[in-house]
């Protein structure tokens, strides 16, 4: 396909998804309104808009990861998705986590992925088809999973508490060195093992080639 048509397809696809979501929520809204789990909120504020933007970023990025043909586009979409998630962490009073997300995930993992993409460059064309089940199976699965998850997410009356936003770095630090010291140390051990392991696994066999 030519780039223009691809862009068109993408826009259409995204619009379709958004429309689906809107329609779904329109259907769900009265139930939402009636369900006890949803607090009757006030007028729409900037907070909400930004939230929606970040959410769209995260989900859209994920959609790009799922659906795009080009592996580089996939990586890029992952980047956006991770960014969106990081932004959402801020909303959830997890500032340190947000930063850690950006640093580690985007700065480390995504770079690593890019490295891998580059190193395995011969895949020029990326298509979705899966030999055994194809994307139909995946879609089916998703059609099953998604409503389920959404149902759970929306219908269950979570006992929500008043949630003040606060800085968490100090608390996190304390937790890591007091309560969660052992997992902390073990995590470092795991990282060491990973380091060594990755090197061992990835190196070329020098003996018999």
């Amino acid at each position: 396909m030519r780039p223009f048509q691809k862009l068109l397809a993408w826009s259409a696809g995204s619009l379709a998804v958004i429309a689906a979501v809107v329609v779904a929520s329109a259907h769900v809204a009265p139930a939402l309104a009636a369900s006890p789990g949803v607090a009757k909120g006030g007028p729409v504020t900037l907070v909400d808009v930004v939230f929606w933007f970040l959410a769209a970023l995260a989900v859209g990025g994920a959609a790009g990861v799922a659906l795009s043909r080009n592996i580089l586009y996939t990586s890029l979409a992952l980047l956006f998705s991770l960014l969106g998630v990081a932004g959402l962490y801020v909303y959830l009073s997890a500032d340190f986590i947000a930063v850690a997300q950006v640093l580690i995930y985007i700065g480390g993992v995504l770079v690593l992925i890019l490295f891998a993409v580059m190193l395995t460059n011969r895949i020029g064309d990326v298509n979705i088809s899966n030999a055994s089940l194809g994307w139909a199976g995946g879609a089916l699965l998703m059609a099953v999973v998604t409503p389920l998850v959404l149902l759970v997410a929306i219908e269950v009356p979570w006992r929500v508490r008043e949630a003040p936003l606060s800085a968490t770095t100090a608390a996190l630090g304390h937790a890591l060195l007091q309560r969660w010291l052992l997992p902390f140390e073990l995590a470092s051990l795991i990282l060491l093992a990973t380091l060594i392991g990755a090197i061992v696994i990835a190196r070329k066999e020098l003996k018999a080639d």
Partner: protein
Amino acid sequence: MEHPLNELGPVVVHQVSYLWLIPLFPAVGAFVNSLFGIRLQRALGKRAVHLIAIGMMALSFAVAVRAFLELYALAPGERFLSQTLWRMLTAGPLSFDLGFALDPLSMMMVLIITFIGTLIHVFSTGYMADEPSYWRFFAYLNLFVFAMLLLVMGDNFALMFFGWEGVGLASYLLISFWYTDVEKAKAGMKAFVVNRFGDFGFILGLFLLFWTLGGVWEPRADVRSLAYHPEIGTSAVAGAANPFFAVGPKASEGEHPVKIGPTLNFRELRDQVVIESTGVAEHLKHQRVWGFALMAVVGILLFVGAMGKSAQIPLYVWLPDAMAGPTPVSALIHAATMVTAGVYMVARLSYLYALSPTAMGWVAAIGGLTAFFAATIGFFQYDIKKVLAYSTVSQLGFMFVGVGVGAFWAGTYHLLTHAFFKACLFLGSGSVILGCHHEQDMRQMGGLKKHMPITAWTYLIACWAIAGFPWASGFYSKDEILWKAFAARDLAFLGHSTPWLGPAIFLLGILTATGTSFYMFRSYYMTFTGRYRGGAGHAEEHDEDPHSAHAAPHHATAAHPQDNVDPNGGHGAAHGKKDDHGHGAHAADAGHGHGHHGGTPHESPLSITAVLVVLAAGSVLASLLGVPAAWTHHEPLLERWLAPSLPAEVRFAEFPHSTEILFQGLGVGAAVVGWFFARLLFKDGRSRVPADLKKRFFGFWTVVYNKYYVDEAYHAVVVRPSLFLARFLFWFDQHVIDWLVNFAAWLGRLVANIDGAIDTYVVDGAVNAVAGITGEAGRALRRIETGRITTYLYGLTLGSLLVVLFNFLFR
């Protein structure tokens, strides 16, 4: 002589303890010789075998003599010795014991059997000396004597029948003694089979008699049975376990009350029937079965057994063939003892026969016909033993004439005399056969008087006896029979009185006497006079050697044994074959005990000649027992002796003594006529008349020579259908029954195959299917193992989803 019947009481019985020894000794001898004979013979020689056999016979004779002495010492009305060993069988009304009884009749039989039996055993030691199966012969002989003693000493029908069958068996064994020869074996089989026919009739008669006696005591309206009320004096046996019997009137001195009812015991039967006051005899006389008088049927059926055993028409055909056996066998069994069992049986049951004139007429008629018929066949036979065989059949006919017309003691007397002279004749023929090196054809004999003087004289004396010349016993017995036949008035046929039957039988008897005399003297002249015609081709091998010790053998009487018999075995003077008479001294043959090779006949050894002399003496001396009343005005000795055993009353016409003497003269005259013609035609073999007559009447001659083709008739009518039936049944068995069996087998195989198929395809199929399914399932499921991550991830996801769902839905 006459016993008023109402004076007769039950038999007085004396118990003794040694009667069982009489049959025991021969049984032991048979047992020992059959089990150990062959070893004894090998180890100790033939002597051991015959010493045992003869020893046992002698012991038996000794015990018999003792019994005789004891019996003789008793009063005439009490002569009955009894010994019961144990009860053999009880089944309802039927019961019999292993018991022996000796009354005058059976005592006489026992003495004949043991005495003549012992003599013949002695004879056999000489005659059978070359036989390798010596031990078997003597074992069989002893077995025969044992069975015969059982027959005559048994005190009941069952034991008598054991003996009856036993002698049949022994006869079979001995006739086919040389069984490797098919003809001899066939002769044995013929004897046995024909005897069986007779035994069948005997059994039927016995059953009928037993059934008759078991008449119902109370009249029963619903059952047409032989019901009658017993006469006065009877009463049921008190508390008896046996409701079948009543008890008759007690005789004054009898120890046993008379038992009335079905019984197999001779004494009980006699008591019931003979004693008038029991009413049994009257009752039996009036019974009818199938339109015939019952006692007639019983009598005739029992006589059928006698026909078989004693070789009367039509069951005589086995006796001539039985000559295939060794000569001692012919003498003992087929002349002196076994064939007389029928006569014994009729005499024993005299009181039963006296109840039925029809039965008696039947017996006498058959006897007379047989006598005449057999005599005619004997005219033209060439085999000396066959002549004697037909003579036996004929003389048995005479005996049955005697018992048939009611002269029971006369028939029995003839039995006694016949035993002596017939045994003498047979043994004499045996001696001749031996001397002529096993030649039996009279045409090959001749002139043996010079070579075998003792044999010749004893044979002549026996011929004299059988022909019925005075002062030899045959005269007395035969004339008594014929006289009584003429005087018989009680005979009947099918219930109609036939007073002419007696004289008719008399006439037949006279003619038969002529014939008897003729053929017997024919055999004598052909064998002993003239020139020796036989032994062609053998004479050159040996020197003739007249024994210088032998004088010309003409003795006035043969009562004394030859006193110049050579201890080496008695060689007959052997002469030149053709025409040398009287030579100088010749070298004596050494070591010839018996004739085996050599061309000239010779006298037999002492064991043979001594016996011949004794028997010839007996033939003469037995006449003392039966001197007729017409001569002495006393009852003959034997008649007086036998009277207690023969209580039957038969009506005879009365004639003065002079008539009787006249008839005796007639008898002698008939015999003289026969002798005259025999002498004319056959003395010295010089006459050409026999040959001319034969040529002229050749057709008639052929018919008679071939025994009127009776054997051929039997073969066509009886034997061939039986064989056909046997073959048919064999075919049936092979094709129908075996087909069924094979079919069943085929079915079985079919089912088995089906089962196999089921097993292979269904059962194994199921098992294999399970395995197959498992394999296929595995193969199918292996496709999950794609090796691809994606598939596994799908699985993982689905699985976890399902878990969550289940948790969610089913809480």
